């Protein structure tokens, strides 16, 4: 236990005696990594080999566990009670959305992030990447001290050298360039600016591959204001999105998902259920939830918007010059319908656009203007000082670098060699900088070139702030003492500017006098300024229609590069949790791939897993061509090939040995020795901006195959036609759906399949097991669930679920306790995507319990289906007999060699050893904790006291847990609703988990046509 921890970790703690949180001086008995009976494993193996039963009994009796030490504090800190968690309000730094978090610190280690319910942006939700970012703390790739020429160095040393060189530069007016990602922190802005000011010739350049700069630019044109509007999806009754994946990756998905689902309440009045149309080329989670999905290739989007705009402009009596407008590439009735709905919901509708073309964004603004949505469903009250990412500046910087005229280059928060197209050229250019100081926290494609690497803290160790935009500031505070000898970027810059300022002071200074500091830090945010409500007028003159469709040659396809929900631009690449998080749509893990529609794949004569070669049509295409396995993606536009960004990062090479090692194991890494392949090479500059999509590419088959690891083998909710008999219902009633109209009419779900036709099921032994006290249950709202998989990762973290690796997933042995089933379903010609979170259903007549020979899984007094790992002998009979197949078996001793990563384990949950069964426990540790607390306070557990990890993280609030015996509890109320159903009810296993049917805002006849 204690001695399992790497010594250097503790030394580094001892060395630091300052810091804001009291922490063990030398660790204490409670900093434990739960180990199950792992100590005995070698003994076990020996016994297993030697032969079983009585011998083992005798020997087990005789063996002694090794001596365990209990090392208390030397000086007891006030704040900490060993064994009790402390929560620190902070802000999530995983992406630039800036959601609020509560960081759970247990005995000096931050082990879990929860959404901060009071936070203005996220209001309690937290996405998968945010959840997983806690592992970044314990990432063994992180630098433990500063580097000089890739050799360990001390801060004093590096600082003195850097300072010396900077003085020289200052004196002879050398060019200093600071390259950063998007900066949302006012303090960071100040720090960079003041640093830049200390040089005669210095520039601050930013870029962001997933930039929303076009939106800002568009508003500059249309409203003369450099703002990123605040979108209010909850206020919109009609939502039209042009390729904006606002439920998955666009700007602030957590906030948007929360608003979006708030605007779709099927059980309230119908006008509270928005209509959502999605125009997109690939299949995004947002598209999957849309009431109408229209396939539009990137090249066509502008024209479609123009057509929509002209329709609305006519009605609004505004002019739009559409002479020479190409014919509408999609069925005009669809567009009419959408236009009508929009028009009827004037002021209560919202049009969003994910394009990086400012022209298209301008059209989008125009549409919102025509509909009078400004000030209603979106407003320009943006207090944040938005940098307009100028991609041209980046290009010129690279030229500048290449010419060798840059004296000093500072890079923070970006990895240009990886991010930007033609990385080789960038690498070559950067290496020409006289001094290159990287503030990256690890050695990556870029920082390996650096003269000095001055590692920044992980955001959970650092002070900082984030401008929310509505006038409030969200604060970062250290949630634990820095693990390694790293230093806040703020402090580094201040030192190089001449004088060390502590990060805390700098942050405090920013909002000096505007917020109550202690309160702000306690809450994690504070209202700093009231935003000037200057509703700028719309300059119609700025609008011009996008007339022509970018024609793609017949032998080419349109490229769509997209940020994956789990990877974004690749920041999750070194995080095994995110690598093993199944993509919400494709369910593929540990790889990226080229998605093609069925028709296109057939045309190219390639099948799933065939490696294809994708090259840009431009001259440099050959160089940037890359090879990827094909994934057949139903519902995708035939003209499109979609590829996820963020793969093929050098640091992903670390996963070579992840997963069980045995004779028939297959390699985790691809032929390039990395996880997936980087698609950055296919990024292209078009009219000055870096574009993810729109380029036309050649796709050619190669002879090779590369099997993708997918958590699902069969993807349709209907059984294959070839395996049906007359009168047999092909559709399986797993996901039950209806239309809003239909639901309003019947107040219940249409019946699917014979499976659900059954008489009222009696109970043979009604009086034998009554649940007098609590009877825990869970309701999952399929209408709200977006499949974003935040719950999956949250569950994995909370419950110490092991990462098993690509090969094991391919063998269908993923360990996730909570999985999200994804089904495709034909919807006259088009394809619907259905998501269904699936976890242990805690059946009251659990089939798994009856068959366990050793009573390892039995029923609790409060209706929990309990699994005692240490009693399990591993017959797997329970898993076979589970109709939902939610039980997970430890096929191997899943390695936990990364002792640093083990620091993130939850000490309240056993780490399961080889050969035992495990499954969702409804986060019983949280139930027990709540019970204990209520007992000690002499009260009963109140509704909402217990939130399983999945519910806590869900941005759409789709999961509700509670006491089914309490008619007033939220879960009971949900279960009383008309669209509530229990899965496989007819088997009378009496699950404690219920589902609320999927409601789509469609009209009746559609409903008939696809359930008939």
């Amino acid at each position: 236990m204690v001695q399992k921890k790497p010594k250097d970790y503790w030394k580094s703690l001892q060395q630091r005696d300052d810091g804001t949180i009291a922490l063990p001086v030398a660790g204490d008995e409670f900093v434990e990594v739960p180990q199950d009976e792992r100590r005995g494993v070698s003994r076990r193996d020996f016994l297993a080999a030697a032969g079983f039963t009585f011998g083992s009994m005798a020997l087990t009796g005789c063996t002694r566990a090794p001596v365990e030490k209990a090392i208390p504090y030397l000086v007891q800190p006030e704040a900490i009670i060993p064994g009790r968690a402390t929560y620190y309000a902070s802000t999530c730094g995983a992406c630039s959305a800036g959601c609020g978090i509560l960081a759970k610190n247990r005995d000096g280690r931050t082990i879990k992030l929860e959404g901060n319910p009071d936070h203005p942006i996220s209001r309690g939700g937290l996405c998968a990447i945010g959840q997983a970012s806690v592992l970044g703390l314990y990432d063994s790739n992180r630098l433990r001290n500063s580097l000089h020429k890739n050799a360990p160095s001390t801060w004093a040393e590096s600082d003195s050298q850097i300072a010396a060189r900077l003085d020289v530069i200052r004196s002879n007016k050398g060019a200093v360039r600071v390259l950063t990602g998007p900066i949302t922190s006012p303090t960071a802005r100040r720090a960079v600016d003041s640093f830049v000011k200390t040089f005669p010739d210095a520039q601050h350049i930013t870029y962001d591959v997933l930039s929303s700069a076009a939106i800002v630019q568009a508003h500059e044109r249309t409203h003369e204001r450099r703002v990123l509007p605040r979108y209010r999806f909850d206020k919109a009754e009609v939502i039209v999105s042009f390729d904006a994946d606002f439920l998955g990756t666009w700007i602030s998905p957590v906030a948007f998902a929360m608003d979006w689902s708030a605007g779709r309440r099927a059980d309230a009045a119908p006008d509270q259920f928005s209509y959502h149309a999605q125009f997109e080329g690939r299949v995004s989670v947002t598209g999957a939830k849309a009431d109408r999905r229209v396939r539009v290739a990137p090249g066509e989007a502008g024209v479609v918007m123009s057509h929509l705009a002209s329709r609305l402009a006519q009605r609004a009596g505004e002019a739009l010059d559409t002479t020479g407008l190409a014919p509408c590439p999609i069925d005009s009735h669809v567009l009419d319908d959408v236009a009508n709905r929009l028009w009827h919901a004037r002021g209560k509708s919202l049009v969003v656009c994910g394009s990086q073309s400012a022209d298209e964004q301008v059209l989008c603004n125009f549409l919102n203007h025509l509909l009078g949505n400004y000030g209603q469903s979106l407003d320009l009250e943006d207090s944040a000082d938005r940098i307009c990412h100028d991609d041209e500046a980046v290009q010129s910087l690279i030229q500048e670098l290449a010419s060798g005229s840059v004296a000093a280059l500072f890079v923070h928060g970006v990895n240009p060699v990886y991010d930007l197209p033609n990385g080789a050229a960038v690498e070559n250019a950067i290496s020409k900088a006289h001094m290159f100081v990287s503030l990256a926290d690890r050695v990556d494609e870029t920082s390996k070139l650096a003269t000095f690497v001055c590692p920044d803290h992980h955001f959970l160790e650092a002070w900082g702030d984030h401008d929310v935009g509505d006038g409030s500031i969200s604060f970062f505070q250290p949630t634990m003492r820095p693990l390694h000898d790293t230093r806040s970027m703020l402090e580094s810059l201040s030192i190089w500017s001449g004088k060390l300022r502590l990060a805390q002071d700098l942050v405090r200074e920013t909002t000096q006098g505007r917020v109550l500091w202690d309160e702000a830090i306690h809450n994690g945010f504070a209202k700093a300024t009231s935003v000037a409500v200057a509703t700028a007028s719309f300059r119609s003159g700025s609008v011009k229609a996008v007339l022509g469709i970018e024609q793609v040659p017949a032998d080419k396809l349109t490229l769509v590069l997209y940020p994956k929900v789990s990877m974004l631009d690749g920041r999750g690449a070194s995080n095994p949790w995110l690598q093993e998080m199944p993509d919400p749509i494709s369910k593929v893990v540990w790889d990226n791939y080229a998605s093609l529609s069925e028709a296109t794949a057939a045309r190219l004569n390639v099948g799933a897993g065939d490696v294809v070669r994708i090259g840009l049509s431009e001259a440099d295409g050959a160089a940037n061509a890359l090879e990827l396995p094909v994934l057949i993606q139903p519902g995708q536009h035939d003209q499109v090939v979609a590829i996820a960004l963020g793969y093929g990062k050098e640091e992903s090479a670390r996963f070579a040995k992840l997963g069980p090692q045995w004779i028939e194991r297959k390699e985790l890494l691809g032929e390039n020795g990395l996880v997936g392949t980087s698609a950055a090479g296919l990024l292209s500059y078009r009219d000055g901006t870096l574009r993810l999509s729109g380029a036309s590419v050649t796709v050619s088959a190669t002879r090779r195959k590369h099997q993708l690891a997918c958590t699902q083998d069969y993807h349709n909710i209907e059984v294959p036609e070839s395996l049906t008999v007359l009168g047999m219902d092909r559709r399986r009633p797993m996901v039950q759906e209806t239309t809003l109209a239909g639901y309003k009419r019947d107040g219940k779900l249409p019946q699917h399949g014979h499976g659900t036709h059954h008489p009222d099921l009696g109970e043979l032994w009604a009086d034998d097991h009554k649940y007098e006290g609590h009877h825990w249950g869970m309701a999952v709202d399929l209408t709200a669930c977006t499949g974003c998989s935040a719950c999956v990762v949250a569950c994995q973290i909370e419950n110490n679920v092991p990462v098993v690796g690509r090969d094991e997933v391919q063998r269908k042995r993923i360990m996730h306790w909570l999985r999200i089933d994804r089904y495709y379903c034909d919807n006259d010609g088009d394809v619907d995507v259905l998501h269904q979170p699936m976890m242990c259903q805690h059946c009251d007549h659990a089939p798994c319990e009856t068959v366990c020979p050793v009573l390892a899984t039995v029923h609790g007094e409060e209706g929990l289906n309990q699994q005692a790992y240490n009693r399990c002998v591993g017959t797997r009979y329970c898993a076979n007999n589970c109709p939902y197949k939610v039980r997970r078996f430890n096929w191997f001793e899943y390695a936990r060699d990364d002792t640093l990563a083990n620091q993130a384990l939850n000490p309240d949950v056993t780490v399961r050893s080889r050969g035992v069964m495990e499954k969702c426990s409804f986060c019983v540790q949280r139930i027990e904790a709540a019970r204990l607390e209520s007992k000690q306070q002499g009260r009963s557990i109140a509704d909402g006291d217990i939130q399983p990890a999945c519910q806590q993280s869900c941005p759409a609030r789709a999961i509700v847990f509670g006491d089914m015996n309490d008619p007033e509890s939220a879960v009971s109320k949900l279960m009383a609703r008309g669209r509530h159903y229990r899965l496989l009810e007819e088997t009378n296993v009496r699950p404690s988990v219920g589902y609320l049917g999927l409601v789509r805002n469609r009209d009746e006849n559609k409903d008939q046509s696809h359930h008939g």
Partner: protein
Amino acid sequence: MAKNLISRDDNRRFLLAVFEREEDILGATNAARERGLVIADVYTPYAIHGLDKAMGLRPSRLPWVCFALGLAGASFKVWFEFWTSATDWPINVGGKPWNSLPAFVPVTFEVMVLFAALSTVAVFLVGRRLLPGKRPRLAASGVTDNRFALVIEETDATFDLGEVSAMLRSFGVSHLEERVDQDLL
């Protein structure tokens, strides 16, 4: 059951007659019994049908042992299952009742069979003094191969050796011999 006809006092005499054929031993035994001779035992290489009648043996009481112990085993097991599942620590298993009697039947049955069979065999072996490593006393060579031996006790003076031998010869006895206090069992 294992009543030993041969009491242990000395100077008792036996007549041993060895036959080659099944029908002869059957006939001879019958005849001997009809004459009221005391048949100590018959030694055969295999179980000859009808020989029990010829010797006039009473039916074995082993079935009763079998029945009794089988019953005992079954009732113990059914009690044990009930006690563990419903009394000692009643645990809710898949919502089944504490006393799931139907589910207890299979194990009960198996245990009954086990008890009945093993106990019967044990009683038989001990009763007939059949124990590992015991040194056998053969009445005559070949009684475990191809020859049949009839042993008659010469009870008292009325036993007419000549007459008996004549009778046995009529059945084609292959070897005739008188023995004193032969320990045959």
